[in-house]
């Protein structure tokens, strides 16, 4: 597992944690809202990172689950059920639908799979838009309440932020546990070489389906939190474009790096917001954002979090070179000592 191997990284993470925990009360509404938005996308892309980064299933339909989660909670709450019923319901439904979406992955891979999932996203989106009796159609669902927890209202932006933060941390912990168990290796094996994996007893069908299903659960939870954050949903944020953005976040952050989504979601959510306020950029913030993504990719094709790996690999390569040099000298000596050697 590639997380932190050294103290500086640990320190950095602690600092970051302090920032997310302590800083928000000092922010204005918009800042808190943005941070919450970011956290929600971290949760969603954490799931996608499992599907794409670890299990290697090219999915371009993640926003559909995001949407299913959001609509589940919204519809249930409109029907009078509690958020606390909606959240697990969203997770469950996404799990089941995720399993189903996994099936094309058993038949096609790479770009074909990407488009199967993209198509799935379109289909879900069409249902959200056309089935007005259920989803409110293009008018969406308005006035979605924020929940209260043990009698404590999460209505304010700040309390809702801490709630989302807690959920994000719990979900991250669970994923971390899963990835460092044998499952993590099985997913990676599936990504690297499914044929070989199967011949070694890795149940590629189950792992493929589960990589979608678990990823979907994360997206569904994120969607549920999203509905309650924005308090209004309509089909647009769950269209194909959103899936593509999530894919972008995962890859830019670093697919297959545990903390990739944290960085990726920051790039996808916070960077454009920040660019808006940069002098001279304002009107051009989206082109600038697009260009930044291109530059980032060209610079770090394996994502931002590959930087420590790069440094580590460089150091390891240097050490290995040195070791090889020593053994080379020994070999030469041994050869000279034996009767064999360089003649001529």
């Amino acid at each position, binding site marked *: 597992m590639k997380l932190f191997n050294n103290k500086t990284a640990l320190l950095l993470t602690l600092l970051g944690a302090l920032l997310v925990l302590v800083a928000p009360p000092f922010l204005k509404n918009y800042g808190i809202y943005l941070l919450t938005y970011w956290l929600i996308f971290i949760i969603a892309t954490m799931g996608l990172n499992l599907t794409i980064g670890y299990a290697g299933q090219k999915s371009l339909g993640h926003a559909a689950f995001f949407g299913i989660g959001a609509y589940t909670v919204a519809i249930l709450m409109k029907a009078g059920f509690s958020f606390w019923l909606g959240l697990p319901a969203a997770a469950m439904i996404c799990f089941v639908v995720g399993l189903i979406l996994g099936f094309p992955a058993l038949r096609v891979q790479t*770009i074909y799979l990407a488009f199967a999932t993209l198509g799935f996203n*379109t289909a879900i989106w*069409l249902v959200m838009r056309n089935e007005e009796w259920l989803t409110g159609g293009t008018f969406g669902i308005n006035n979605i309440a924020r929940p209260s927890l043990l009698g404590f209202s999460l209505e304010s932006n700040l309390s809702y932020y801490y709630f989302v933060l807690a959920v994000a941390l719990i979900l991250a912990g669970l994923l971390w546990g899963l990835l460092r168990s044998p499952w993590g290796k099985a997913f990676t094996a599936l990504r690297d070489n499914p044929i070989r994996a199967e011949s070694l007893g890795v149940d590629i069908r189950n792992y493929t389906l589960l990589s979608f299903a678990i990823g979907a659960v994360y997206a569904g939870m994120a969607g549920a939190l999203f509905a309650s954050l924005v308090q209004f949903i309509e089909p647009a944020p769950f269209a194909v474009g959103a899936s593509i953005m999530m894919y*972008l976040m995962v890859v830019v952050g670093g697919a297959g790096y545990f903390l990739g989504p944290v960085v990726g979601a920051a790039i996808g959510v916070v960077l454009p917001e920040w660019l808006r306020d940069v002098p001279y950029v304002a009107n051009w913030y989206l082109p600038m954002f697009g260009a930044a993504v291109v530059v980032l*990719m*060209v610079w770090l094709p*394996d994502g931002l979090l590959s930087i420590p790996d790069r440094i580590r690999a460089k150091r390891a390569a240097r050490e290995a070179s040195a070791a090889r040099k020593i053994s080379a000298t020994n070999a030469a000596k041994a050869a000279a000592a034996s009767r064999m050697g360089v003649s001529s």
Partner: protein
Amino acid sequence: MTDFLQLFFSGLATGSIYALAALGFTLLWQASGTINFAQGEFVMLPAFMMLGFMSLGAPMLVSFVLTALLAVLLLGWVFKRGVVDPLFKYGMMPIVVATIGLSIAMRNGVRAGFSAEAHPFPGLFADKLFNIAGVTVTLQDIGTFALAMVIVMATQAFLAKTVTGRAMQAVAQNTESASVLGINVPRMIFYTFAINAVLAVAAALLVTPTYLAKFDMGEGLGTKAFFAAIIGGFNNSRGALVGGLIVGVCENLASAYISPAYKDAVALLIFMVVILFKPQGLLGKKEERKV
């Protein structure tokens, strides 16, 4: 019956448009193993370039040629040097994301720097209607269809029949082996993207009169073209044509006879059926033996 034929022929016209856009995908896949998510924008940008040249008073043909040259430089050479070269060896994911970034930049760049409006674009063909047995088609429809046909066949022939075309495919399949044989890999990649740029300009010329020159015209076009290409067979140029026409016609029929609200699901449905029976697409080559 007349209705059906009317839908069918209108569908063919739309289908040829999809086919033209899809052709770029199949070309890049066959000859460089890359996917370009900015392909729709690669059609959009030349449309604006041509409009620009025409607004400076250049006749259509001159604008076309100038745009083609400019596109080969920008969408061919610069794109290759800036994006493809550094990312080529890292597989599909980084290129996909870089081109997503590029499409965001291009689309919004045109919007922010030029205009969010749709601009009319002169048709290559006279505005003429033909009525054959109750079915009306425009000269533009016929012309687009015919030209799409010619362009697809020419591309296919080039890739399959010429040594250069095959060398380009070789680069996509195994870059290191290709260079070991003395194939000039960078040049082949340049050819690929240069041809792609020219195809994009041709597509822009034929597509824009219907689509209108607008910053986001590439968005819808790109997605439809993707599905068309995959249905027809991603590794076959003729597949782009077949896929495009099938999607165009079926969408029309479905929106007339089934439900217009679910029209966009048609491409998806065909795609699902196709991968169930022929994962490599209708005309696609089977995947190679793996073990």
